[in-house]
């Protein structure tokens, strides 16, 4: 056991400041344990979201020493405990209280993305055949736990607050999972280009770096979607062809 200091952001929609707490850190403790211990010892109204405490639900996202991370998967002994550990809420979303932010925008965005629309079943009993090789990529995307760390780190949302024009890496991954689903027949390219702002992404790969599920967000989801959009809307030959046919 060693005593460690934690600078935790306390505040609400009106603003806030860091409060320093000292608590005992034992072997294997994660930052979420430390926050809970502080809550039980001295700050019962310290607000924090959490559920599974095993990196599977994506609730306890925060910025630890400035990096977007899951509190339940960040071991204290991996941090320099000779200095205070800074714990603050996600920056890309408005604070509700302390470490809890208003992530409702994400749920509203998802609702606007066209749902899964399968082709007719392959078999009489209403089922389909799919080969494992054909779903490996989609399964990678479906590992997403919706922690929104990728949304938090993305400068388009974090620094430029383009929440109205850009859906963020999480929903490019979601769209990619639908677009690359072997059974899906829906077309989502037009809105990706027009209203969902895929062009804003300039492939800095920050989202891929922070993903706790190690999804290769940029390379496997966003770039292929960009390619499809470019292919559809910016290919000069196709553009000419559309003009000749009188389609806009």
């Amino acid at each position, binding site marked *: 056991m060693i005593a460690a200091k934690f600078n935790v952001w306390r505040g*609400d929609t009106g603003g806030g400041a860091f409060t320093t707490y000292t608590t005992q850190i*034992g*072997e*294997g*403790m*994660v930052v979420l*344990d430390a926050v809970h211990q502080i*809550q*039980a010892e001295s700050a*019962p*109204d*310290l*607000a*924090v*979201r*959490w*559920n*599974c*405490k*095993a*990196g*599977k*639900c*994506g*609730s306890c996202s925060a910025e630890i020493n400035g990096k977007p991370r899951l509190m339940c*998967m960040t*071991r204290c002994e991996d941090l320099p405990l000779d200095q205070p550990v800074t714990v603050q809420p996600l920056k890309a979303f408005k604070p*509700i*209280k*302390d470490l*809890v932010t208003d*992530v*409702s925008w994400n*749920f509203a965005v*998802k*609702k606007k993305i066209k*749902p*899964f629309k*399968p082709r007719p*079943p392959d078999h009489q*009993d*209403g*089922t*389909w*055949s*799919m*080969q*494992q090789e054909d*779903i490996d990529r*989609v*399964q990678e995307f*479906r*590992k*997403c*736990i*919706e922690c929104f760390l990728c949304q938090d780190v993305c400068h388009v949302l974090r620094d430029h607050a383009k929440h109205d024009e850009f859906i963020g890496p999480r929903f490019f991954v979601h769209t990619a999972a*639908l677009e690359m*689903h072997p059974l*899906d027949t829906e077309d989502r390219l037009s809105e990706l280009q027009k209203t969902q702002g895929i062009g804003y992404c300039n492939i800095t790969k920050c989202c891929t770096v922070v993903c706790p599920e190690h999804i290769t967000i940029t390379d496997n989801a966003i770039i292929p979607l960009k390619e499809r959009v470019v292919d559809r809307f910016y290919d000069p030959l196709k553009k000419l062809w559309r003009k000749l046919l009188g389609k806009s």
Partner: protein
Amino acid sequence: MAGDSTARYTTHEHDVLVIGAGGAGLRAAIEASAGGASVGLVCKSLLGKAHTVMAEGGVAAALANVDQRDGWQVHFADTMRGGQYVNQWRMAQLHAQEAPDRVRELEAWGAVFDRTKDGRILQRNFGGHRYPRLAHVGDRTGLEMIRTLQDHGVHRGIDVHMEVTVVRLLLDGGRVAGALAYDRERGRFRLFRAKAIVLATGGIGRAYEITSNSWEYTGDGHTLAYDAGAELIDMEYVQFHPTGMVWPPSVRGILVTEGVRGEGGVLRNSAGKRFMFDDIPDNYRPQTASDPEEGWRYTQGDKSARRPPELLTRDHVARCIMREIKAGRGSPHGGVFLDISWIKQKLGSAREHIKKKLPSMYHQFKELAGIDITAEPMEVGPTTHYVMGGVRVDSDSQMSTVPGLFAAGEVAAGLHGANRLGGNSLSDLLVFGKRAGEYAARWAKEHSAGSVAAGEVDAAITRMLAPIERAAHGGENPFAIQHDLQKEMQALVGIVRNQAEMDRMVDRLASYRQRAAKVVAPGNREYNPGWHSALDLHCLLTVSEAIARSAAARRESRGGHFREDFPDKDAKFGKLTTMVKKGPDGSMQLSHVPVPQWPAEMQKIMDENTK
């Protein structure tokens, strides 16, 4: 704000209110909506974070994709035997018959299960299931299911109320009329008026110190139903999953999927011995491997081989692990060894194979314990995982004894009897979530809205605010009460039980109630975890009492209920179900009711399929 009741809460109206947004709640909401009802869905957390997300191994359904010998009859027989024949047989029948359709339906809604070589849904082995039966996605099946239901559900016109906790059901002349709740964000009170309510709140794991369950699992639905006059049955049957993490201390209790054993993982004691071969129950002996080699062949799909003893039912494996630990043959941190790395002796590509089949286990141990499971054994021990007991419901409609109140998933009782088989929970919540939603919508169509007594709502709000209002004078810390209760429940009504300890726990609950009456929550109503924990205490104490009283009254050992003073089964108790209900004076009343007897054709199915 006192006095003026209209200013104290906002009102929402739905035909059907679903409380809980895990798999059962989402499935119920989807079905109720499809049935033409306006549906409100209340989640204690954000949508998609419920405990279903933690389910790892798979969903049990006799699709017979991997082994053609499987069918609903075998699944039914397996479920009844695993439950020690105190299940509600009709639920076990419906579950086995309907699970395949519910799984196929998920695929139509976008779920992407792992595949067989011929392109169909792959199925894996699990404890107590005769054939490979669990449809899965690596070891994150629950995530796949909840995300599929969530993404399908949000396009169905369901009103989702996130981070809202229901504290009380409101009745009108004995039938359901609404529910009172608060939102976490601002601490505002919400009155939900509904013609029918579906409880899908999950379990009670937070009543114990070592648990795989999250903070939400405080027995809310069990308590809401009990307070409304519904009956709870089978509450003595708590499932301690045999394999939870034991080290480091902060991760103690986190689940290690049974899928590890399904893929060939073995249990060893400190002497390196595979101790599960030492104790194989007679009724499972004909189906259990006689040596390690046969067990390995079974895990690799050899249809002529029988399953290894590591895949016996969870209650039995948990007790064997406890026996090794108590006999001083445990691992350094008080567990036993679970080893999957040994398969490198059998498979050249073992490392990649393990990472592919058990990716989240690999990361969980790597990141939280610094252990590489492809190279070294894990340390595991039993963890509180699931409660078989819950609200007594009609097997077909899932309606409780309170008119208009339905329950599905873990909060409902009956399907699993004395012990649940792994994988039967995910199928349970699909099958009975759908049924509850369907019948709730039907009920809502046939009945008009009841009225809610304003005085009752007002009084409840005043009680809820008390911990904040008295905080200035000091009092009990809610986290401390919860912690002490968990420790005591673990020690006195845990895996191995006896009369004196359980009676002591029943007595101790009075003093916990006194402490809870003095609980304080400094701060205001805005996202105040101290206040939320204070309000959860009533539920934790109610389910703790139900468990302790039910367990103390069953003087035999069966499934998840093991007593050192009565270590054997007693045929007399095998015909009885324990039931608790709130008496007219407010005290908990316990009785035993007969286990429903199944018709002869069901007996025949069981006889044919348990040889």
